[in-house]
């Protein structure tokens, strides 16, 4: 048994080595093609993903990772329950928009305004997700379609609102006014990283506990594994659907609020859409096969790749397009490795379980 496990570890190590060699090989080729210095580009990549003066780039990576991880956790809850909610973007926008508007117009002490606005954002996100759920349950619109289509109206509603009624005209940009400075999320002492990441960490923790340890999380997973089974044994499938969507949407709304109070301090048109947070979140979840504890790590990985590639472009003169191709190459190879390893480990567990 021991030798079996050891050889499995060895095999794992070897295949990771092979994947890394491939990545290095392809990147080298790409850089040779555009004539960029390999060493310099690599150090620029690492520097920009994890370094910087007083680790400022690492902080930027973390801040981005928080948003991606938050969106990943949000879709993970849905996917695990077998609900193909790909409307995270709409729910995120709904949250961000409502957070900004609430903070601009709610009276009261800053801490109250902040709290109430975050809450309102979560309700907005949940509501937008529930809309897709109701469309499915009552009108028979498949969730995959309904949730995706609902991304568009909210995007344009948000654009309209910050372009017209609530626009900060003086700034000359399509954006809302700044939310009161007292409601901004503070930075961790001595850094430029806001404490929004703590909210995301809390949401991730909640999702992990919910998925593994609660009755509803268990029922949701049964539905995800086999909807026919869940129906046959009489799990409350409809309720489960709405409840799960509401939680997904609330977390997406929270991410929107964190982006407003922690990063941009206002709602800027496109600020939640263009960086593709929601879509990256979906890929991050698929990469680790919906295993809850791995989802935040996967989010961090994607953020690092993105900031690193951006840095390569800035400091090593690697053209942006090539940086993007490299990004894709890294993701592809790591993805193949990670999913392979997860499948193998779950097979091992299945075999081991027999003897337990």
């Amino acid at each position, binding site marked *: 048994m021991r030798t079996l496990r050891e050889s499995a570890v060895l095999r794992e190590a070897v295949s990771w080595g092979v994947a890394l060699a491939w990545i290095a090989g392809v990147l080298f080729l790409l850089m040779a093609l555009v004539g960029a210095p390999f060493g310099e580009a690599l150090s620029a990549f690492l520097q920009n993903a994890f370094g910087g003066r007083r680790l400022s780039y690492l902080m930027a990576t973390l801040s981005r990772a928080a948003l991606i991880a938050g969106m990943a956790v949000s879709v993970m809850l849905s996917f695990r329950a077998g609900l193909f909610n790909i409307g995270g973007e709409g729910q995120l926008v709904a949250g961000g928009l409502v957070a900004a508007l609430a903070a601009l117009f709610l009276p009261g002490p800053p801490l109250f305004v902040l709290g109430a606005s975050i809450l309102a954002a979560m309700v907005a996100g949940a509501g937008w997700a529930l809309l897709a759920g109701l469309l499915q349950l009552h009108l028979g619109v498949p969730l995959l379609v309904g949730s995706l289509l609902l991304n568009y109206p909210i995007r344009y509603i948000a654009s309209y609102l910050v372009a017209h009624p609530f626009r900060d005209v003086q700034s000359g940009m399509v954006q809302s006014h700044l939310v009161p400075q007292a409601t901004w999320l503070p930075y961790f002492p001595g850094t430029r990283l806001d404490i929004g990441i703590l909210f995301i960490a809390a949401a991730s923790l909640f999702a992990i506990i919910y998925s593994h340890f609660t009755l509803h999380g*268990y029922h949701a997973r*049964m539905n995800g594994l*086999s909807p026919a*089974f869940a129906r*046959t044994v*009489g799990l409350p499938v409809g309720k489960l659907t709405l409840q799960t969507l509401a939680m997904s949407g609330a977390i997406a709304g929270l991410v929107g609020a964190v982006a407003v109070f922690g990063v941009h301090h206002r709602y800027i048109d496109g600020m939640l859409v263009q960086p593709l947070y929601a879509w990256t979140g979906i890929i991050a979840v698929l990469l680790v096969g919906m295993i809850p504890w791995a989802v935040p790590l996967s989010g961090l990985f994607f953020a690092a790749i993105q900031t690193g590639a951006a840095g390569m472009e800035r400091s090593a003169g690697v053209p942006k397009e090539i940086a993007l191709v490299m990004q894709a190459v890294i993701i592809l190879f790591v993805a193949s490795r990670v999913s392979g390893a997860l499948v193998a480990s779950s097979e091992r567990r*299945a075999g081991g379980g027999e003897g*337990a």
Partner: protein
Amino acid sequence: MRVALCGITVRFGALTAVEDVSLAIEPGEVHAVVGENGAGKTTLMNVLFGLVAPQAGAIRLDGQDRRWTSPQDAIRHGLGMVHQHFMLQESMSVLENIVLCAEPAGRFGLVDFSAARSRLRRIAEQHGISLALDRPVARLSVGERQVVEVLKMLYRQAEVLILDEPTSVLTPQEKDRLFATLRSFRTAGKAIVLITHKLDEVMELADRVSVMRAGRLVWSGRLSQTSKEEIARGIVGGALPPARQRAVRTPGEPVLAVRDLEVAGRSGAVGPLSLRVHAGEIVGIAGVAGNGQGELIQAITGLAPALSGEIALCGRPVTHLDVERRRRLGMSYIPEDRQRMGLALGATVSENANAGRDDRRAFTRGPFLDRAAMARFASGLIERFRIRVGGPSALAATMSGGNKQKLVVGRELARNTPLVIAENPTWGVDIGAIDFIHGELMRMRDEGHAVLLVSTELDEVMALSDRILVMYAGAIAGEVAGTEADRETIGRMMTSRAHQALPEVA
């Protein structure tokens, strides 16, 4: 082609599924492999077919050592297998399913369907098989799917055919047709391996029998050298259970009352149907599969809506309640399809055992799961229903077919509800377990539960039922008291017209 398995051993973690088994399969012979659930029959055949790599042992074809890297390898060397759980693409047509992975390429690499079609016609004709090639598989009955699987093997020119419990869900007529086909294969010199739990089939068809128990081969030889009783003793490893005595019992209040029920069916509406099941009686529904039994059960369980009519459970109308509420009111359901509806294969035994339990307090603390209590409950089922599995934390997918069935049956019967609906409850379980499950159903009846039994197995319906309803073309064609039932009468009702003889038994 002569096949020899030599000293095959397969381990899954600490569990030895097959231990040092050697077996020869001769051309022109039907070789039956029998044994209790989890004995290792499927695993052994999976080795031969290249789906499982053995830890030790060799495969020899015509004296030559072979080592498969994948089932494709095995197929190329003339092996074919019909799996215990079918492997067909629901949305594709019969023709597409059959040529899948062995497509005849025409010009430009396009699939030459017309060539495939005419070749299939020839094969089907040769062995007396008839089937519409353009129907989507999703619309076929289980028996027809079986035929598709067989045709698939033939199309690939298999010389060695492995059939893993091919008859467990077939009606007697479908079984007879399949056996006629297999006889024709035997005459054509093919080697056939037949895994089954039905000893009558062994006696009827086999030339050679191998008995497995707990991973080992305990007996192997010609059928003429043994007897049905001896094989049965070999399987259970001891004496056979005595025949069951039915206690006389007067039925009580109606537990299930169905009135003028109509349900949408695959081919037109099913119904109107009316029936009652009383406390302390087993009502069996017999009929050729696809005559509305499935739709009736779906409507009673709440999985499909009723078009009209009323359903009452324990005196309360439930027509508009969902599955969950009906189950809470006192209904358990053993579904026909254990792979899709009965179990979540990707979840553990414990998670499967606890799904749908009403006494949630017993395995939760507030919103949280009490995993230890869940495992305890699952262990209880494993013990009581003699499920052969590593433990509560094993994945359901790794259980043998019969053990999966026992888990579903155990979970549902343990709920101890006034009404039990059982569809083919002994599908694929061994003779010992059939006896045990029948015993449990009888015990529940004697204790005053109502049991609605649907089975394609006429013997099962006749052995258990107090009353038998026969369904034909979406309606109840007749009712017979259990004590007066005989195969002839029921068989006639199943085809509904007395003058219309049973389908030709070739």
